Every structure is written in structure tokens, then in C-alpha cells.
């Protein structure tokens, strides 16, 4: 069964690109533009990985991330932050991100990192 990835970014262009890219690499992709819906989707869809933008209206990526990491039900879900913000990496690390990629990213590197992540998950799960 293919792995499920939830992507949340307020920029439609990024969502389209990542959806195409990751589906192309055999993943199930749920693309969501509003950060307010992230928790609900995680609860119902149980994704294996969350790719999250930082600068989003109403609820920022690091706020979402903190909520997820503080909640026992979601704290094990790996989260990769993608951001074009200059301080992105620091914010991501402080909020407890599992990985970070600066925009603009190299799509091949991103796919590699996602694959590495999910295979690690699989290994850990099988142990």
C-alpha cells in the first residue's frame, strides 16, 4: 500500500507542483491550502508524512507544528517544513520539525528526502 503524504501550503502553485511530483513517485497525496484544516485531515486520513509551509494566514506552520508535537495522538507524525523565509530553518528546528527544506528546493533532493523518511518509518514500524 502506498504511503500517504499530506501537504499544506497556502500557495496553489507549490501545492500543484508537489502533488504532481509526489504522485509521480508513487505516493498518495492530499493537498490542502488552509492550515486550519490540517488537524482534521490528519485525524481522518492518517497520513504518513506532513509537508508543511511556515508562512500561512491565520494559523502559521510553526503554530500547527507545535500543536501536533504537543498532542500525543499526532506527535509521532513526521513533519517536513518547507519555507522561503530567511529564518525558516531556525523557526522549524525550534518548533520541533523532523526535517527542513528551503524554498526554492531541488525537486530530486526533496523526493529523495521524502523517500528516506518513509522507508525509515517503515523500518521502525516493522521492528
Amino acid at each position: 500500500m502506498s504511503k500517504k503524504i499530506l501537504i499544506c501550503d497556502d500557495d496553489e502553485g507549490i501545492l500543484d507542483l508537489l502533488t504532481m511530483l509526489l504522485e509521480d513517485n508513487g505516493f498518495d497525496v492530499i493537498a490542502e491550502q488552509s492550515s486550519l484544516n490540517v488537524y482534521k485531515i490528519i485525524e481522518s486520513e492518517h497520513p504518513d508524512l506532513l509537508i508543511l509551509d511556515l508562512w500561512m494566514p491565520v494559523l502559521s506552520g510553526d503554530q500547527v507544528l507545535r500543536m501536533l508535537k504537543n498532542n500525543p495522538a499526532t506527535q509521532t507524525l513526521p513533519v517536513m517544513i518547507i519555507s522561503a523565509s530567511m529564518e525558516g530553518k531556525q523557526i522549524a528546528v525550534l518548533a520541533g520539525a523532523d526535517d527542513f527544506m528551503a524554498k526554492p528546493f531541488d525537486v530530486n533532493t526533496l523526493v529523495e528526502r521524502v523517500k528516506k523518511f518513509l522507508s525509515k518509518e517503515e523500518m521502525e514500524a516493522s521492528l
Partner: protein
Amino acid sequence: MNKLNNGEFSFSHETINKDFELLTRALDASISGIVITDHNLPDNPIIYCNAAFEQISGYDRKEIIGRNCRFLQQNDRNQPERQIVREAIINGLDCVVEIRNYRKDGTLFWNELYMSAIKDAFGNTTHFIGVQNDISRRKKAELALLQHQELMERRIEERTRIIKESEEYLASIVSTVRESLIVLDKSHSVLSVNDHFLKTFKVSLNETEGKVLYELGNGQWNIERLRQMLENVLPTNNPVEDFEVEHDFPHIGRKLMLVNAHRIELEGDYKDRILIAIEDITDRREIERRKDDFLSIASHELKTPLTTVKGYVQMMNRYMPENASDKFKSIVDKTSIYVERLNNLLSELLDVSRIQTGNIELHKELFDFDRVVKETVEGIQTATKTHQITVIGKATNSYSGDESHIVQVISNLLANAIKYAPDSPEIVVYLSLVSNYLKVSVTDYGMGISQEDQKKIFDRFFRVGEIQQRFPGMGIGLYVCDQIIKNHGGSLWVESEKGKGSTFSFTLPLDETEVPE
């Protein structure tokens, strides 16, 4: 005739000649000039003069007898003393005057004249006796003293005027300065402040001068940090410069101040006075903050669509049909190159803006330096088919610094090496430990840099003239590298010979204490 009986003189018929001769000799022995005038004769002529008078006046007795005393003043007639003498003669009184007289040869002498009237039994004036002393020397000394005093007074006036002028000049400078200035005495009472202080902090001179600083305006200057600086820092670190104080003032609101303090150490009246200059940087900081905000937003907003474009171009490569024409492939390749260039320019521009604002933040953590260098080289090696990059040596596997910044420097040096050595494929990265520094050198065998240009290549926006035509760029890369290395307490330099290639090297201190705060 008691006076006469008092002495040896009897003036009897037998002795009178002898007695007179003796008295005349006595008069001649005096060093004071003595004359007797007869008041009953017309114009009060001199009827007797002694030898000293001849001596003082330079006239012979025969030239003196019969003349009025005024002949001694010659043409110097307008002396007020003459009036005193005249009145004494008319009224038959004694008088003492200092009067200018002239010798026979015309030279001046100051004459101190004691004049006494001689009266008969009925009280009528019969004669005058004048006793004269030449006081020219004393007069001269007095005059010299007077002149000296006048000169001194004039000088003092001149000095006072100069001091006043220079005080006014300094005061006008102080009042023009757009910084607040305060002068405190050693017990921290305000001696004076300038206009700018009064304006900025909306206070009057009356409620300021003479008050202890901390009590000013109901204690609004009782700022703990300022107090600490004045009481604890200044006594041992004089002067204190760029000391930042933030305070919320009741009327004017929150102010961010940059304070310089200087305690006067010179011996003298001003010793231990404290000069304080306050620059209000509240607005400047606000502008800097807005600039930073703007940069963050610009960076974010420009990079977001760039991410999409870059991603799609990469995917175009992925989906390239087998039978795609070379022309099409080349178009996609070029698009990819220019998107990357746009990304680099954007990053450089943002870096420079951040460095300009002084806000290039270091996020230091321990990392495996050698591994990071190798990974960076690998990353660039995969992207370049034209050059072969070799890594030689080892530096350290544990360095504390900003990894992303160090990667930026190494990438930049490698990109330059590739760019400026298009026909020499070999590039060497040399890692080593030198004393307590790590050293990285990047060597290419390309076009090299002239001695003259070597001095300028680390300047912002500098481009080597002939290079600009062939290799576009903004002249920012090395400037940023230099700043990053400096921020880590290290140094970056170049050794190069035109036509033979260049070696860019940097060292970084392993000892934390050498890294700037």
C-alpha cells in the same frame, strides 16, 4: 625768636655775620632746592635760592634771582597744579604739589613743591618759602607702573573677550548638535544641558539644572541601567561608548538611546565632571526593523513563485520525451540555468541587505566541518560536467559555526573557480589545521586576478572591468563571503597571478574566544 635760641645762634652784634653764614651754608648743604620769594614786591620774585635749587633747575643763581617761580614751567602752562599754587599765594596758605618743571636745557623734571607762607606780626603774607625735590625718578616709576597696569588691564580685557567669544562659539556648537548633551558634577547633579536635551525630553532649564540626574522630572531619569553605567562602568572604563539604554518616559514614551559618557580626568576645575551625549535611535531602529520586515517579506514572496518555476523546469527534464530535439533539450537546460541564476541573485541581494543592516545572524552549532565541505563539493560536482574538483587533506570533524553560511562561502568560492577557469578543468580544495585555526584553500588554474584588482575584489559591487562583459554578476559574492568569515572571527584572502590561476583561502579560529560576539 625761640626757634633761633634753640640752637647755637644768638644773632648778637658780635655773632650775626657768623650765624648767617652758618645758616646759609646749612641751606646750601640741603639736597632739596629752596627758594624764597618776596610777596611784597611786584610779581612775587625769587629773592633767594640755595645751591641745590641751582643743581635741580640747571640755572645759575644770577638767572634765578628776580624771576617768578613760574619760569620753571616754561611753556607747560596748563597744569592744574598751577591753579593750586596760585590760590595758595592769593590766600597766603601753605600747599604741596607735584608739578612738571623744566631745566634750563629743556628736560623735564618732576618737582615736589612744599610751599609755605611767611607772615608778619599783623598776619600779612610777606614771603613764600619753596622747598623743592626732584621726584622724576619716582614719578617715572609710578608712571611705568601705571602704564603697566593699563597694559595688563587691556590684556585682561582682550583675554576675557576672546574667552567669551570662544565660549559663545562652543555654546553655539553645543546648541546646534542634534544630540542631547548633559554635564554632571561628580555627585551626578546636572550642571548644564543643551537645547536639544530640553526639546527632546520636553523639560525646562529650571527644572533641570542643579538637580540630581536621577531625580529629574519626578524620577523619570532614575533608569537602573544608566545608573549602573555611571556608577559601576564609568569609574573603571572611561569613556563609555555606544551604551544602549531603553526606557519608557511618562510623557514622551519609549525611547531607545545610545549613550556616550566621558569622565574628565584632567586635574583642575573640571575634574570628575561627567559629559553625557545621548543619541535617540528609537526611529532609526524602527526603520531598520521595517527594512528587515520588508526583506523577509520580499524574500518570501519572490522565492515562492520561483520555487514553482524551478520545480516545473526540473520536471520538464524528467518528462523529456526520448525523441525530443536537441534544440528543445537545450532550451529546457537554459531555462534551468537562468532560474538558478535568478535564485542566486536574489539570495545575494538579500544577504547584502542583511549584512548592511548588520543583522546577519549567526546560528552556531557544532558540525562535522570536513564532511560538510565534502558534501558541498559533491553537490557542485554533480552540477558541473566541465570541471573536476578534488578535496585533499583534513581540517576538523567538529567546528562550531553557522553551517549554512560556511556552505555558502565554499559554494561561492567553488562557483567562482569554475566560472573564471573555463578552460582549466582542475580545481583543488585543500583542508588543513594550522595552529588553532582550520584552513580551507580553493585553487583554480584559470585566468587569475591582477595585483591591482586583488585589493578590490572583496568590495561590494566590485567587478573586474573585462570580466563584466563575459561573466555577468553583481559583484556581491566575495563581499558576502568576506563578511561571513569575519563574523566567524576568521580571515579570507587571495593569492593570484594573472593568467596562472587563483587560490582563495580562509582560516577560522577553533578557539571560541577569538570569535566576535
